[in-house]
């Protein structure tokens, strides 16, 4: 069995974002990057399945992006993936979700993966398109926003999360793709021995030009902070002073403190 896990590297969301020189995306200076949270659930689910099946499946991790994404790849390998593909693309942020999906599809088409795991969305772009578009391009059935996953004999049974805590139960036949949501599992921390082992695993580097055959359908024209709604009071500075000011405001503006 062959499993593919798609991984994106994204900035820490507690960062301060500033527009890049073109004003269309964030400048990367001063940002710390990590594995997209949703993709960590994807990696973990693949590794759990490998464990369930006695170590038989081979897990390939794929990331499209500039050189820095090697860090994300290393983490995935240390969590238990077997090998990795780095589609090298210094301008991946300018590709639209459809192009990214087509790049991955161009790689995956010849490989015959039985299962593909992706995150339901990325934290930076948040299009929730890449996983589904990839499945459509490969002709795989697909389920999104998965919070429960079971596999037996080529059949995948998943729980999709719907609004209001309701779940939808769906059964798919492999080959299939699922997009992973918060709460699917608890991603493991790589252990030191596994980090060491990961260093020896194969990382196949492919320049993006070899895989990209599609023109962009979306053009980014602007990146900026949301217009401030205003009105809200911001309390900064000394904690004791903040406490007093907050209590004053609550007494003034609400009926909850007497």
């Amino acid at each position, binding site marked *: 069995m062959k499993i593919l896990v798609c991984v994106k590297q994204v900035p820490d969301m507690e960062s301060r974002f500033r527009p890049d020189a073109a004003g269309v995306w964030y400048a990367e200076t001063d940002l710390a990057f990590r594995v997209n949270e949703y993709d960590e659930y994807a990696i973990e689910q693949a590794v759990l399945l490998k464990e369930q099946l006695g170590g038989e499946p081979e897990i390939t991790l794929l990331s499209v992006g500039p050189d820095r994404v090697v860090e994300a790849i290393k983490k995935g390998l240390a969590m238990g993936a077997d090998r990795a593909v780095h589609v090298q693309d210094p301008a991946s942020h300018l590709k639209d979700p459809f192009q990214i999906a087509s790049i991955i599809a161009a790689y995956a088409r010849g490989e015959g993966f039985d299962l593909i795991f992706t995150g339901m969305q990325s934290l930076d772009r948040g299009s929730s398109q890449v996983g589904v578009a990839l499945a459509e391009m490969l002709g795989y059935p697909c389920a999104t926003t998965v919070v429960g996953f079971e596999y037996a004999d080529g059949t995948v049974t998943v729980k999709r999360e719907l609004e209001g805590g309701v779940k939808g139960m769906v059964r798919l036949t492999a080959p299939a793709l699922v997009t992973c949501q918060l709460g699917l599992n608890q991603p493991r921390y790589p252990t030191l021995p596994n980090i060491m082992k990961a260093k020896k695993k194969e990382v196949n580097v492919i320049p993006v030009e070899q895989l990209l055959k599609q023109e962009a359908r*979306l053009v980014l024209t602007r990146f900026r902070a949301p217009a401030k709604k205003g009105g809200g009071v911001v309390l900064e500075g000394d904690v004791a002073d903040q406490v007093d000011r907050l209590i004053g405001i609550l007494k003034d503006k609400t009926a909850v403190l007497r």
Partner: protein
Amino acid sequence: MKALLVGECRDGKLLEHSHELFGFASQLGAETAMVLIGSEGALPSYGGTVYLADASKYGEYNPDLHKRLVQAAVEREKPDYVVFMHTSYGWDLAPRVAALLQAPQVSEVVALAEGGFERPCCSQKMRQVVQAVGSPVVLTLQGGAFPAVVPGGTPQQQPLDVDGKGRGEFLGYEAAARKGVDLSRAEIIVSAGRGVGKKENLPVIAELAKVLGGEVGASRPVVDSGWMEAGAQVGVTGQTVSPKLYIACGISGAIQHLAGMKKSGFIVAINKDRDAPIGEVADVLVVADVMQFVPALTAKLAK
């Protein structure tokens, strides 16, 4: 200009937020038609064309067939835009329709801006404006971003059919896990977010709730990590609350969390990040470390 609006049914009823599609179309200044996989009982009061496919035949969740039904309506209407809500139905189906139509897709649109579509990015902290090349353009709309509009009238029904069956099998719904306190009745809620740091810190939040005579809520990651039980979760996939006072401790303010608490009477957020999106809805944003500020506040209130 024409927009084909994709309505959404659950358990045979039109979902309320489908009306936001009409609000968006009127901002766009587009003529409309709707496509709905549902039943006559789910038709909106709307005087335009509704392409109606029978959910009892095609299933409420059968993306392979739903995408072809939408495609069939697109062929008849030739719209410039195909518009979904950005819901578990919309984000699942829209990319399939876009792939089938070879169309550009813009997800989670919050506004029309500068000749393009404005959408959130970087976990709602930032906005981007995106222009689409090609036609039709597939869009999904963020819930609550556009006004719900009931246009009124009686729809002209057009039956919609396709052959074949889907690949996946929908096995049914599982009801929401509901145990613990009913936060929807609480007057004061103090909620813990991932910024609280670890499970061992939660008593600090509980003590503040206690001196205020309120209940404790949580954001999603706190529940997913097993720090608190599922019943405490506030948000789209948790409870919807409207207390007189909501105190968000170490919560960033993701749209899915805001959806559950933004109707609160007065909102206080404690966050060390001055730019956290929770600041958009908070009446007071305290820029501080929760573990320093909350115990100090509790101590002062307890006096």
